[in-house]
């Protein structure tokens, strides 16, 4: 779950990481009122979960109420790389002496936490990594030991920051690690981490991705969940508890299991079609779940055919077939459907489906045959 900058800063603030005072607003009048409370100059920042805000004109400095009004009016509703700006973050502008970069994430290969620290902040860290990899100081932290102050000090020394920034940076890194672990984040990133002319170190931006699997430990993350950006299709699927990812094509895909669903999307593509979605209904394939899945797919206006790909394991073919038949009785489907049913008792399942087959409800023995048929039907 990706947080907006303002949520990331609120998250950091809980762990005493210094951030600028600010407020999140959704209207021009509220932006001005917030700026009046905060004091000038302020920065008006578009809240979107996509890079390139600055270049798109989504971050502006404002010295007075008039400027806040102008910038807020321009930025609210702006489209930044496909994301519409609905929220602004108004914060006290900071004087910047130097810009650094700091982050923690999991190194899946080393199976340790990886911290990155660089004196070259304020730009994409990927660019720094490509052009000047020596400018990034790395530390691998054993999750059992955690990050000690001594390690943090050595790490900061290796990054060659301005010596003035040492104490403040060590302090922030220790807090950032705590936020990452205790807050169950997949990623915490500060870019830029700034050194002010006065010698203080401070998080000027916040990029935080939280682990959805850890919500049981953080009931308060509900508020972040509520503001997640999903397209209509994804929201509908999410409400039904389905694993759904919207894609740009026209063949709707329903499969059981994440791997098989991915594989189904691939095979549609491989035979020359374009998948409309990834949808994993899990192991069960009951009438209830199948109905929900069909409803979600059916509401996608781009879908011109549906490919249902089920491999019965513990759930037997006849149960899957009955689920599909019941679901088809409940949901009015306007596009042709192709079913591939295999695995445990597939024969029994196919027998159950047989009397229901027609031009618009077909069955195919293999994944490739089914994919080809679904793509051909979509072209009609």
């Amino acid at each position, binding site marked *: 779950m990706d947080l907006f900058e303002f949520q990331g800063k609120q998250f950091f603030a809980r762990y005493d990481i210094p951030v600028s005072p600010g407020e999140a607003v959704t209207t021009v009048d509220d932006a001005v009122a917030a700026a009046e409370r905060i004091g000038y100059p302020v920065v008006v920042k578009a809240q979107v979960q996509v890079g390139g805000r600055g270049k798109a004109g989504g971050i502006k400095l404002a010295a007075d109420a008039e400027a806040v009004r102008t910038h807020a009016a321009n930025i609210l509703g702006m489209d930044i790389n496909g994301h519409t700006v609905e929220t602004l973050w108004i914060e006290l502008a900071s004087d910047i002496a130097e810009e650094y970069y700091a982050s923690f994430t*999991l190194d*899946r*290969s080393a*199976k*340790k*936490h990886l911290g990155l620290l660089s004196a070259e902040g304020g730009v994409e860290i*990927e660019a720094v990594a490509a052009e000047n990899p020596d400018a990034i100081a790395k530390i691998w932290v*054993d*999750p*059992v030991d955690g990050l000690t102050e001594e390690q943090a000090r050595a790490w900061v020394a290796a990054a060659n920051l301005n010596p003035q920034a040492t104490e403040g940076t060590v302090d922030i890194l220790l807090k950032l690690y705590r936020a990452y*672990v205790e807050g*169950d984040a*997949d990623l915490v990133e500060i870019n830029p981490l700034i050194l002010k002319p006065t010698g203080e170190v401070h998080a000027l931006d916040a990029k935080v991705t939280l*682990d959805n*699997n*850890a919500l*049981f*430990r953080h009931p308060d993350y509900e508020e972040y969940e509520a503001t997640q950006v999903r397209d209509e299709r994804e929201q509908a699927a999410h409400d039904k508890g389905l*694993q759904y*990812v919207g*894609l740009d094509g026209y063949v709707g895909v329903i*499969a*059981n*299991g*994440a*791997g*098989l*669903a*991915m*594989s189904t*999307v*691939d*095979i549609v*593509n*491989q035979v020359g079609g374009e*998948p409309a979605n*990834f949808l*994993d209904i899990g*192991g069960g394939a009951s009438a209830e779940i199948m109905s929900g899945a069909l409803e979600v797919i059916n509401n996608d206006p781009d879908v011109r055919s549906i490919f249902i790909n089920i*491999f*019965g*394991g*513990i759930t037997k073919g006849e149960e899957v077939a009955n689920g599909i038949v019941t679901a088809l009785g409940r949901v009015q489907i306007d596009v042709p459907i192709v079913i591939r049913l*295999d*695995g*445990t008792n597939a024969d029994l399942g196919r027998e159950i489906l047989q009397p229901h087959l027609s031009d618009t409800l077909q069955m195919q023995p*293999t*994944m*490739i045959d089914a994919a080809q048929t679904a793509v051909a039907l979509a072209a009609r």
Partner: protein
Amino acid sequence: MSIFVDETTKVVYQGLTGSQGRFYGLLNRDYGTQVVAGTNPRKAGTDVDGIPVFATVADAVAETDASASCIFIPAPGVRDAVMEAAEGGVSFIVCITEGVPAQDEAWFFNKLRRDFPEVTLLGPNCPGIISPGKANIGITAGHIAKSPVDGQKAVGIVSRSGTLTYQALYELKLNDIGVSTCVGIGGDPVPGTSFIDCLERFEADPQTAAVMMIGEIGGSAEEEAAEFIASKMSKPVVSYIAGVTAPPGKKMGHAGAIVSGGKGTAQAKMNALRDAGARVGLNPTEAGQLMVEVVRGL
């Protein structure tokens, strides 16, 4: 032969008294697995269909000599359950539970490696392991796997995905090819057992003649496996990678299946495997056919 588990493996089920634990524990026993115990601190002294329930894994090990555990505990309790199993004295832990926080996984992976280096953890978020005809620990439907026949070439399977594993077992069965062991390592970011751990054992297992490896997008485990295949494997490997068309930044169901920062793409993984000498199928059926060709050519 088989790897990790066989007919002598005695298993304690943590969470046997829950609905999932009971359902699969009894199915596994029906398959022939030695399901010797369950645990539940509040139900110690009772039984589940004749299987004794103990308060802790340590108690179960003391009474039944169990050497493996299978975890069906809900995600919030998994970290404690894994440590209880290791401290209780089993050497093989299968964690079926999905939805375990990555911070917990990273923690107990390193904790086990340090304090219990002799313990192998499989999962979390995996379908388990089956040595056909000998033992089935987890949620795989046992009858879709063909037992190896003495004197014939058998295939070992290692996979990050559950349903694709079943598909692979099924394709091989249709072609009358037996499976030595099928290991589901799971789709999470920090799997307890890696592809390489399994490839190493399959390479050493006399019954396994070839290996089917099923990967998916995200991380670099397949690339690391490719290096191992190139340098250490003499047995042929056939592979399939799911997620060619997955858009960057979107998790495709599994917590580990995400292409981020241009890394972990299916294409890169397939290239690495091909360069390592593995044969790569573009879909599960094609991979199955390639394996049939490989086995017939042996």
